C-alpha cells in the first residue's frame, strides 16, 4: 500500500465569470453564425466548475500524491484570484484568443502546469454548464 504507485488526486473549484465569444477575424454576421447567443455584445456569465487532476506516486510517508493545501494555494493564486468574478475577455491572456471554454481550459492548464509542489498536472476539466464540459490532458 505504501509503495510508489501512481495515483491521481482531484479537486473541484468554482469560478463565476463572464465572457463573450467574438473574434475580429469574422464579420458581425459570421460571428453571430459561429457563436449564436454567446456573441451577444454585452456578454454573459457562467459558474464554471474547474476540476484539477494531479498524477504521481503516492508518498509512503503521507499516503498522498500531493498536498491538498498546496494545490489549493496554487489554484487560488494563479487561477481563482485572476478569473473569479472577472470578465474573461478583458484578461491579457484572451487579448488574442476567444475565451471559449476550450481555450479557458487550456489556459488554466498552462497556468497550473509548473505550479505544483509534487506530482504532475494530468488533466484540467472545465464544466461550463451541467451539460457541457471540456478537458485538457497532459501530453506524452
Amino acid at each position, binding site marked *: *500500500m505504501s509503495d510508489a*504507485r501512481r495515483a491521481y*488526486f*482531484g479537486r473541484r473549484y468554482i469560478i463565476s465569470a463572464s465572457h463573450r465569444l467574438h473574434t475580429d477575424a469574422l464579420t458581425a454576421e459570421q460571428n453571430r453564425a459561429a457563436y449564436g447567443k454567446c456573441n451577444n455584445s454585452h456578454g454573459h456569465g457562467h459558474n464554471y466548475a474547474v476540476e484539477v487532476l494531479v498524477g504521481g506516486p503516492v508518498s509512503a510517508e503521507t499516503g498522498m500524491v500531493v498536498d491538498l493545501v498546496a494545490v489549493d494555494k496554487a489554484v487560488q493564486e494563479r487561477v481563482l484570484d485572476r478569473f473569479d468574478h472577472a470578465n474573461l475577455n478583458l484578461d491579457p491572456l484572451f487579448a488574442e484568443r476567444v475565451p471559449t471554454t476550450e481555450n479557458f481550459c487550456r489556459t488554466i492548464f498552462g497556468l497550473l502546469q509548473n505550479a505544483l509542489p509534487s506530482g504532475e498536472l494530468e488533466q484540467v476539466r472545465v464544466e461550463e454548464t451541467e451539460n457541457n464540459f471540456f478537458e485538457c490532458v497532459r501530453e506524452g
Partner: protein
Amino acid sequence: MIYLTRRATFSASHYYWNEAWSREKNEQVFGRCANKNGHGHNYTVEVTVAGEPDPVTGFVVDLKWLKDVMEREVLAAWDHRHLNLDAPEFKHAMPTTENIAIAAWKRLEPAVTAAGGARLNRIRVYETPEIFAEYRGGQ
C-alpha cells in the same frame, strides 16, 4: 471499447497519523485530519470496467454482478467502519483517498479479471464532492 462505470457509496471514519513522526509534525502535515478521535465522510466510489459488449446480451459486464462484487469486496469491509482500525490494508498505510482508491482496486481487480471479458480500468473515490482520487492500475 466501451467503458462502463458503476457508483456506490459508503460511510466511514478515519484519521491521518504517521507513527514515525512527532505529534507536532503530524499536526503540521495533516492538520485537522490528525485528530486521533477520527472523523468521517460519505465516500463515493466509481468503478470503471472496459470491454466489448457481448454479442448476445449487449453487456460489457452484468451490472447486477458488478454491484454484488462491489458490495462483497468493498462495502462489506468499509461501510460503517473505521478505516484505520477495521480495515487490514490501513493498519500500516494512511487511509488517504489515494490509498483508498488503490486498496479498492486491489479488492476488485481479482474478481473482475477472474470473470473474464471486461478489465478493471479505473477506480475513482470521492471523499467529498470536491475531493477525489483515481487509480488506474499498474505502476
